[in-house]
Structure formats: structure tokens, C-alpha cells
């Protein structure tokens, strides 16, 4: 087992310069809340940069659903694929973003299991910074998903009546909803402490309401109990709000409902996530 003595001596690192590095650093500094959050955001971006394949779902889900529904079901559902796009595209925008909200939570759970999380907690850093920094990374991911949907939509013939301001407002609203869900997944991650479990719970919670909504079809043909759910489903309100903004239709009721949903989800889960973060084991 033991290596020959000759190899030992030449691989021992030249650590003689360490002494000079260990001079007392003076009074302890504390990273500001903003700087710390930005650092965690930077870290989240670096993780995406080093492992771009984690973006597969972010890209695939909106592309597949937009193309699939437009060309296969579009004629049947909306008269023509072109007409259907007005309804569908704001909907797939909502879906594309919603379906990738659990990744941030999964990353957080991974940090917990690898011990990185404890190390961050052992630092004198504002306890919201890790979660908030994660949200910055999430926002980047959501923006990418949104951009893909919009660009793809324009390529296949979608012309937003609301113009650029309408599209930007819709994207901002949908990202706001995504960030509210990020808090939810952060709380779940800190409770279950396992990345795969967060993903499984995430899909189980996110996918059914995405279909049981008005994203793909109007609920007219659904059974009554399902119509009732579709009506209260925040995903439906958000899809309607995105349609109103992008197509410049409607009076803003759906937008108001969406903002209320975003505020409610955030107010419940942000304090919970922060509480779980600060909790000492």
C-alpha cells in the first residue's frame, strides 16, 4: 500500500510560503447582505456554466409543448394553428417557467447533503443570502425559458398584439410567479434534504395543475369538478394574465389575481424557508 519514499518527498506541496499567508487578518469583516446574495447568484450562474446539461429541461419543455400543440392539436383546438398560437403561446410561457421552478430547490437540497450548506451557515452571512442568491440563478433560468418560448413563437408565426412592452410585462409577471414558487421549493428542499425527492415532489405538484388549467384547452369540455378547479387554479389566472398582456386584451383582472397569488405564495413560503435556513440542528 505504501508508496516508495522517493515519491513522497517530491509530491509534498511546497507549503513553506504558508506562514506569510497566515498573518492575522485584522478585525473580522462581514459581507454585506447584497454582496453575499450577489456572490451566491454568481455561484448559481457558474454552476449552470460548468454543467449546461442541466438546462436540457429548461429548453426542451417549452419547445416540445409549443411545437407539438401548435401543429398537432392547433387546428383542432383553435381553428387554425395561427389562431391557436394567441392562446397557446402565453400558456406555454407559463408552463415553461413553472416546470423548471424546482431546480433551484433541488440544488439547495444538494448543497445540504454535500455539507456545503453547513459551511455557508458557519459564516457570518445574512441567512437569506443563499436563498436569494439562488433566486438570482433561478431568475436567469426562467428568463432563458421565457426567451426560448417567445422567440420560438415569433418564428412560427406568433405576432403579439401587445408588442414588446406587453411581452416584457408578461415575462416579468411569469418570472415573478416562478420566483414565488422558488421559495416554496427552497422550503421543501430544507425539509426533505434530498435533491431527487425535491424533483419528484416538484413534478408531482407542478405538472397536474399545468394541464388542469386553461393553458392548452378551454375547460368547456371538462367535467364540472375539473372546471371548478381550473377556475381557481393560479396557473389559469397567470396564463390569462400573460395572454392579456401579450395580446393586449382584457382589463387586467387576471393580472391582479396573478399578483395576489405571487404575493400569497411568497408571504407563506419565504418566511418558512428563511426559518428553516436559520434553524440549528
Amino acid at each position, binding site marked *: 500500500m505504501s508508496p516508495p519514499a522517493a515519491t513522497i518527498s517530491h509530491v*509534498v506541496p511546497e507549503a513553506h510560503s*504558508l506562514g506569510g499567508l497566515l498573518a492575522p487578518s485584522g478585525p473580522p469583516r462581514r459581507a454585506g447582505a447584497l454582496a453575499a446574495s450577489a*456572490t451566491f447568484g454568481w*455561484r448559481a450562474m457558474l454552476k449552470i456554466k*460548468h454543467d449546461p446539461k442541466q438546462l436540457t429541461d429548461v429548453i426542451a419543455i417549452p419547445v416540445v409543448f409549443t411545437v407539438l400543440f401548435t401543429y398537432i392539436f392547433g387546428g383542432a383546438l383553435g381553428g387554425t394553428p395561427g389562431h391557436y398560437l394567441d392562446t397557446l403561446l402565453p400558456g406555454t410561457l407559463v408552463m415553461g417557467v413553472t416546470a423548471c421552478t424546482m431546480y433551484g430547490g433541488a440544488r439547495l437540497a444538494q448543497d445540504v447533503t454535500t455539507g456545503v450548506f453547513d459551511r455557508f451557515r458557519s459564516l*457570518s452571512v445574512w441567512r437569506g443570502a443563499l436563498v436569494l442568491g439562488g433566486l438570482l440563478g433561478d431568475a436567469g433560468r426562467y428568463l432563458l425559458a421565457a426567451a426560448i418560448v417567445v422567440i420560438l413563437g415569433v418564428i412560427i408565426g406568433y405576432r403579439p398584439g401587445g408588442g414588446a412592452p406587453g411581452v416584457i410585462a408578461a415575462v416579468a409577471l411569469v418570472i415573478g410567479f416562478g420566483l414565488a414558487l422558488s421559495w416554496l421549493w427552497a422550503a421543501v428542499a430544507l425539509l426533505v434534504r434530498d435533491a431527487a425527492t425535491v424533483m419528484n415532489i416538484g413534478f408531482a405538484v407542478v405538472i397536474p395543475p399545468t394541464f388542469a388549467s386553461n393553458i392548452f384547452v378551454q375547460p368547456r369540455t371538462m367535467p364540472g369538478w375539473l372546471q371548478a378547479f381550473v377556475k381557481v387554479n393560479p396557473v389559469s389566472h397567470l396564463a390569462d394574465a400573460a395572454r392579456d398582456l401579450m395580446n393586449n386584451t382584457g382589463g387586467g383582472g387576471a393580472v391582479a389575481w396573478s399578483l395576489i397569488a405571487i404575493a400569497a405564495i411568497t408571504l407563506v413560503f419565504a418566511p418558512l424557508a428563511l426559518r428553516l435556513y436559520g434553524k440549528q440542528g
Partner: protein
Amino acid sequence: MMSTTGVAGDGLAIEAHGLVKAYGGHRALDGIDLTVRRGQVFGFLGPNGAGKTTTIRVLATLARADGGTARVLGFDAASEMEEIRARVAVTGQFASLDEDLTGYENLVVFGRLRGLSRAASKLRAEELLAAFGLTGSASRPVRAYSGGMRRRLDIGASLIVTPDLLFLDEPTTGMDPRSQMQVWDLVSQIAAAGTTVLLTTQYLEEADQLAGQIAVIDHGRIVAEGTSAQLKARVGAGTLHIRLLDGQQRHKARGILAGTLERAVELDSDPLALSVPLATRPDATDVGGLIGRAMTRLSEARVAVAGVWIGQPSLHEAFLALTGLPASPADTDHKDTYS
């Protein structure tokens, strides 16, 4: 390599009284008292599950004790957490680094989180990578690092800002001997620069090599404390080894020694040698007197003695005597790979 450095340390780095921490019904800590002077390397020695990591988690404010009090660098661990966090660094049992990020990026992240400016973080990261012999791997993701490289980077991340107190939780567990030597060298240098180090280990040899003061922990309690030499002395004076000129006289010698020393006498595999483990005695003069009498009896009986010496007990024997348990299976593995 004993490194109780003479760096002026006013006051205590750690002062804990009666720490209790229970997980469910299991008392991971069952009344820990601990005093660590500033500038000291303090070894926390115990088998798996003894409570070493839990103690570090409480002292580093990652866990809250259910009972007892702890002051770390003069600050209360239950109420002045931020003060403690700003001054201590924790290197956990498993290298807690970001696998996806490069070594350089990991260090820059910690620099920023320690309150350094962007430029200072980058400079510090480069300096540390150079000092730890990791410059060549600076831009590789940590995923691709070997165990020894990870541990070095991990310790480097704890030195971004020189901490007043460094917790090192089993820094060499599972390491090959070469990497272990590198880590020992690092710890000695860190201690020499004046940082107080609390080191946990399952390896007696490691505590013996690095720590000036050692506490032995078992089942959430400290069962013994002192310098390596004091702990060995508490266990016993060691083993008396006697070598005869004539192997024919061994049985005669055995009878005389057993009668005088009132201890079991073992016949070694060497046909000329005998050994007598000297069980715990409060004072060494007693042992000296006993041995003197035994030698006189052997001489009177005309048993020719070629040599006599006393072997110091190993810390392993000390552990066995203090806890009633062999140190840990891991220790045996370690010994195997090390020799």
C-alpha cells in the same frame, strides 16, 4: 511536531461546561466540559459516534446545545453566534466544497462571503492555491480533484481570512499516507502561525503527533484529558521488558517476577525475553521500587539478566484502558496502510 505554540494567547479559545445535545432519545453529548487555551492545538480523540462532530457543531454555532454553556473566543455560543462565526472557520469531516466549481472559483466565493472585495478575494485565492500546490489545478472543477487535493483546498477555504480558531473535523480520515502527511504539515504550520486548532480524530497517532492537549471522548463524555504523555501515564507505566542471557532460566525468572511484581508475566516469542505489563499505579516511584526489588531477587537467584527496559504504553493501549474499547476498527486499517 508537538505544537503547543508559545504565541501569546490571553484568555481561552473555548470554555464549555456540561454541554448536552440529544437527538431523539440518544444523548450525543452527555455533559462535555472543555477548556482550550488560545494558540493551542487541541486533539479530540474518540471512535465513530463518540460525539466529536456534534461538539464541533455546537461550538461552531451550527447546532444549539440542549444544556450547558459554551463560550467560544469569549462569545456565548447560544446568543453571540455572528461574533463567533466571523472569527472561526470550520472544515467539516467531508470536504464541503462545490463540486461543479473550479478550485479557484470555490475560494473566490468564500473570499466574497468573508467580506473581502472582489479583487482581494481573487488575489487571496491565487495565493492560497499557490501555497497549497494547487495552482496547476486551479481551473479544474473540484469534481476532478483527488481526495488529498480536495482536503487541501478545503483547508485553504478555511484560511481565506486567517481564523482565530479553526475546527478540523477528522482531517485525514480515509486518506492515503502521503496526503495525510501533507495535512499534518499544514496543521502544524497553521498552529505555528498562532491560530488555535481544535482537531478531531480517530487516529491516536494523529493526536499524538499534532495536539499538545488531548481529550478522549466516548459516548458523549470526556473520559480523560491531558497531554499525550499524561494520558499514557494515567494508563500505566508501560511494559517492563527483560531479556535473559540463558533461555533455560526463563521459567525460573517468570516465577520470581510474578511473585515480586504481583502481575501477569508474559513469555515473548523471543526465547530469551519476558514482558510484564505494569498496570496503573498512582506514582512512578512505586513502580521503580518494585522493579528494583524484582531485579535484586533475580540477581539473588542467579538469573543472569542481559537487559531491562520499560516501553511506554501506546496511546492505543491508553484508549483501551480509558474507554474499555479498542479505539476503532478504522484505526487498525489506518495502521495497516501506514506501515
